[in-house]
């Protein structure tokens, strides 16, 4: 099993940390992982994206131009990454702020209204975990106990009190997915 994922959105949406928690959970389950961010001026308030690979085998290229899954959180990222999903692959996006919805016919498409829900529940800090929860519901790459360990490892000790909120957000995400196009 190898899953190649791009996560993309605005800087500040928790794109990189979502990827890091996923990757660290993979390490805890003794999988091979890589986490390759965009870096530099791009990070400063602009778009941010990270390529995460989780695999049972040694990972070859950490840099890719085609993905099994794209998790998309803003319009620029939709414009850039919709076309990079492999045929038959998966696209998950938060429709908040999206004006041009995906049009591919050869991929699976789900929406997840994570920003709205996070706002309503006062959980905007863990918005990214709601999205991750949705993804893990569709692709259970790592088991929940390893997600817990991944959170412990990824978050600095002073934020460990937020782990229950993070796990709650992951649960909430599972119920928020809306299938828009599911291939047979």
């Amino acid at each position, binding site marked *: 099993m190898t899953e190649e994922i791009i996560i993309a959105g605005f800087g500040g949406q928790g794109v990189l940390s979502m990827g890091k928690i996923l990757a660290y959970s993979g390490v805890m389950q003794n999988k091979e992982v890589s986490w390759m961010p965009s870096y530099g001026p791009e990070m400063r308030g602009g778009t941010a994206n990270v390529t995460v690979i989780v695999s049972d085998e040694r990972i*070859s*290229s950490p840099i890719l131009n085609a993905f099994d899954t794209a998790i998309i959180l803003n319009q620029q990222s939709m414009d850039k990454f919709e076309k990079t999903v492999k045929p038959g692959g998966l696209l998950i996006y938060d429709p908040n702020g999206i004006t041009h919805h995906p049009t591919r016919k050869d991929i699976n498409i789900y929406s997840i209204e994570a920003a709205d829900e996070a706002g309503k529940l006062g959980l905007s800090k863990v918005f990214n975990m709601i999205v991750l929860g949705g993804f893990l519901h569709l692709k259970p790459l790592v088991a929940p106990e390893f997600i817990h360990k991944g959170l412990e490892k990824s978050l600095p000790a002073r934020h460990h009190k937020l782990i229950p909120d993070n796990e709650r957000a992951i649960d909430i995400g599972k119920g928020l997915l809306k299938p828009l196009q599911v291939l047979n």
Partner: protein
Amino acid sequence: MGELRLMKGNEAVAEAAIRAGCDGYFGYPITPQSEIMEYLMSEKPYETTGMVVLQAESEVASINMLYGGAGTGKRVMTSSSSPGISLMQEGISYMAGAELPALLVNVVRGGPGLGTIQPSQADYFQSVKGGGHGDYKIIVLAPASVQEMADFAKLGFELAFKYRTPVMIQSDGAIGQMMEKVELFDPIPRRTEEELIAQCPWAATGKPKNRDHIIITSLDLDPAGQERVNLKLQAKYRQIEEKEVLFEEISCEDAEYVFVAFGLSARICQKSIDMARAQGIKVGLFRPITLYPFPTKQIAALAKKVKGMLVVEMNAGQMIEDVKLSAGCSVKIEHYGRFGGIIPAPDEVVRALEKQIIGG
């Protein structure tokens, strides 16, 4: 099994340096490697192992602090990225001349000039051919993973002290910035003063009554003396070339074609191999791990077995010169490169193989 962590390449090399018994780090911030000093400052090794971490006023000062520390037998390191490494060349030449051990990390970015902060392999010539003045070489290790960033910090110090020479880890912005699973080796305690003095009788540590005073210098004004210095260095380099070559071969057993690539490019080529083999193209990868000493003999042997070699680099064609010198004219050798921070995609590399080697 050692401790498992998810780390950036930059963090891994910093953590590994602490564990490898490093005595001092001296550096200056530059993207994309600033996490190395940031990590060291936040880990506070000066409170645990006693390792000194100092932010210098420039790369020029950093490398000369390294010269000072190394001259006293201490295990010292610096890190920088391409423009900063250019500034250090004078000091590297002095250290090679004075035969001082040190670990240098170059997290390469695109050039020339201020260039870009994105990953590149355009410093191959500078690292491998001796970027400063005079006839000298430094050992150059090219990690292709975060794990190797950690492992090569330890290996780098070992080689540096074995041969009394600067050793460079030449990685790139992508390997510095990306996170992967790392298995960390157990910490090696720093040497005590007595151990250091016993292990490094050449080092300037304060002259006791029972030995001559020690002079650390790269100067010998007498041409005959300076020629002797050079001959000694050259003899050392021949020994390094004989004994310290490291390389990796992937899927080469049945290969009709090979990619020759180091560092990040080699990782990309591994994916290209999967893609090409799915199309029925029998291709393998030869990855030099030591860029100096270069795996000359191994490439010469491989060249006799295959129909063509594609050298894939994130530069305009640098390592290909060494590949051609090694292989001679026995086989078709072409270069595929992207520059300025652009990373070639795996499918792009397969197309280049088809066009330049198989079809060409």
